[in-house]
């Protein structure tokens, strides 16, 4: 089959100036340049060429939903803008066979003073619908948007929800053989998004081709079967969407910054009569200190090296784990949580406490493990919620072996529960 989109050797470069400067010039600046370097040329010395895209080649077949993924700054938006003819490529060419429309945002050109009705017309014509087409689909758009009652009210009086719904409705009724779609689908309320998505996809059966640019892996998996992964302006991988997503996860992991505090060491300021911690860290099953993150299918070992200064049967030392995103306390754990017969004594001198945080317990995300403890029923030495020795943990990937559960879900925990199914 003949491809409908052919992208040949597309590159885009920008000249970046190393001066701190506004994005626009003032006449004064340019005059100043002329006076400083009356014979020109010299100004180029401070410029550097930055390749936002380099040697991009791909083809999209008719009826395909092709995904373009990559993290921020990978060149996704530049590619999208070139395909939409908003910016010009520096080299290369693109051929698009058929009527094409681009949706880089919903509600382009919406004016607050205009009514819902007027905005449908203006926005519709902005994104490439003819007046006749809008008139024909007008009732459908209005019914879809669920804002019938406010059709003749200026949109400045709309709630943000109504505004987005109306904007989506126009976009969802756009007809074209080829659609270039940005992450417009990731705004607004989830229910309405799904409705719009279904509406856009329903036209797919008529052989529409979609190029979908996103960093929402969920949407890409749901929509696309093939695509490409951009990294630093180049194609890192092209092919099956599942492969792209796992590579994307790897790329994110490689480039993730080291955790700020993976090891806590006593600088001499943390001291008391009973239990002085020296070092706290987390290791994987291999015993190596975790610097970045660990997948969820491996056990974490949280290790506390300390000096016991005074023995006491009441001395209880443990850990608390907090969710970094919302600060909620996930759990507290002590060696003395087991029956008393199994307790091990903390003897005076050097001790190492090691706690196993089992695999498949917490959901993916960032956590804080803090030292807690005190003299049981009497006082805290390390009181939760105060400034206590802590380290950072990060759980990423390894959620399950299931093809249906590769991306993080909502929820604080991510255990794999047992299920029994009785067929009757």
């Amino acid at each position: 089959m003949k491809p409908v989109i052919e992208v040949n050797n597309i590159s885009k470069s920008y000249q970046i100036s190393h001066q701190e400067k506004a994005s626009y010039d003032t006449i004064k600046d340019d005059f100043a340049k002329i006076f400083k370097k009356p014979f020109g040329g010299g100004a180029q010395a401070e410029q550097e060429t930055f390749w936002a895209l380099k040697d991009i080649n791909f083809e999209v077949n008719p009826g395909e939903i092709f995904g373009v993924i990559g993290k921020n700054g990978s060149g996704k938006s530049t590619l999208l803008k070139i395909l939409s003819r908003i910016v010009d490529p520096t080299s290369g060419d693109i051929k698009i066979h058929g009527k094409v429309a681009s949706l880089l945002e919903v509600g382009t050109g919406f004016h607050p003073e205009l009514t819902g009705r007027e905005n449908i017309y203006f926005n519709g014509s902005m994104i490439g619908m003819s007046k006749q087409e809008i008139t024909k689909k007008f009732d459908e758009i209005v019914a879809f948007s669920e804002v019938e009652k406010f059709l003749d009210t200026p949109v400045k009086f709309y709630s943000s929800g109504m505004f987005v719904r109306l904007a989506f409705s126009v976009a969802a009724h756009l007809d074209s053989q080829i659609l270039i779609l940005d992450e417009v689908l990731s705004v607004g309320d989830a229910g309405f998004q799904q409705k719009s998505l279904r509406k856009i996809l329903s036209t797919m059966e008529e052989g529409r081709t979609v190029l979908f640019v996103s960093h929402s892996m969920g949407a890409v998996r749901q929509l696309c079967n093939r695509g490409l992964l951009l990294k630093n302006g180049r194609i890192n991988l092209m092919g099956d969407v599942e492969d792209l997503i796992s590579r994307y996860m790897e790329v994110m992991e490689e480039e993730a910054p080291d955790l700020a505090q993976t090891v806590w060491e006593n600088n001499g300021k943390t001291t008391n009569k009973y239990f002085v911690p020296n070092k706290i860290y987390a290791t994987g099953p291999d015993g190596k200190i975790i610097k970045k993150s660990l997948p969820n299918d491996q056990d974490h070992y949280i290790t506390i090296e300390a000096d016991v200064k005074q023995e006491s049967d009441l001395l209880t030392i443990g850990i608390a784990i907090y969710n970094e995103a919302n600060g909620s306390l996930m759990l507290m754990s002590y060696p003395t949580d087991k029956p008393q017969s199994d307790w091990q004594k903390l003897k005076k001198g050097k001790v190492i406490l090691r706690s196993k945080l089992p695999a498949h317990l917490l959901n993916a995300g960032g956590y804080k493990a803090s030292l807690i403890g005190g003299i049981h029923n009497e006082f805290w030495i390390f009181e939760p919620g105060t400034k206590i020795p802590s380290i950072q943990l990060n759980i990423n990937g390894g959620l399950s072996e299931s093809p249906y559960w590769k991306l993080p879900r909502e929820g604080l925990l991510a255990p794999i529960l047992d299920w029994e199914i009785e067929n009757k």
Partner: protein
Amino acid sequence: MRSLDDTLVIEAGKTNKISIREFWLYRELLYFFAWRDIKVRYKQTALGAGWAILQPLLAAAIFTVFFNKVAHISTGASNIPYPVFAYLGLMYWNGFSTALLNVSNSLLANSGVINKVYFPRLIPPFSATALSIVDFCFALAVFFLLLVGFTIVPGWVGIALIIPSLILAMVAALGIGLVFASLNIKYRDVRSALPYVVQIAFFVTPVIYPLSLIPQRFQIYAFLNPATGAISSVKAGIFHQPVNWVGLLISWVSALIFLAFGLWYFKRSEKKLPDYL
């Protein structure tokens, strides 16, 4: 791209010719831009179309008091009442100057959509003249009432020149405005400087004084300013005076040169637009 069902080719460094065919395909969008500007303008102001009439009317009243009565600037002929004379000039000047300002700001004002959707970038500047034309029509209706009120019978040459002179003023405003619109993107000073330029231009154009106030041998140069040709020829025609046809021709040539230069300059800067917006 609408109804353009054949192959679209995006090529690096393709020379940017002005495609009349493409412009024609997008004619509906041109209409929608103009329609939006007019709707918004008449909704935002309490007086709506009233402004289009009040502006030249009040200005004519003020100039009548200060220029005519105090400074004794006349209309150049005893049988022409100064208020009507000034109103006619101001009506055209307002059309020209607001079109110039709107065209100059059209890219900046539409930067939101320019960054998100493709359409010929010439559409916002072209549609920006529409508002001035609508305003002009309201003001023109009042002008006819003034003629009745002052019992003036207009010359037929003048009546015939009303529309061509408006077109002349719009062509000039568009040509000059296109240059400013491109400059405006690169140099934000333009936006602040432009109102002063327009103000100075007002006094060097025979809007509220007759062309005869300019010494005979300089008059021909005054016509290099297209607004001079537009305004002085309509005035002469309406008030039964001889029209300076050579001057009018010079103004037309000048306006068309402005337009050609404006289009060329705009096209040249067009591709750099997204980098600055």
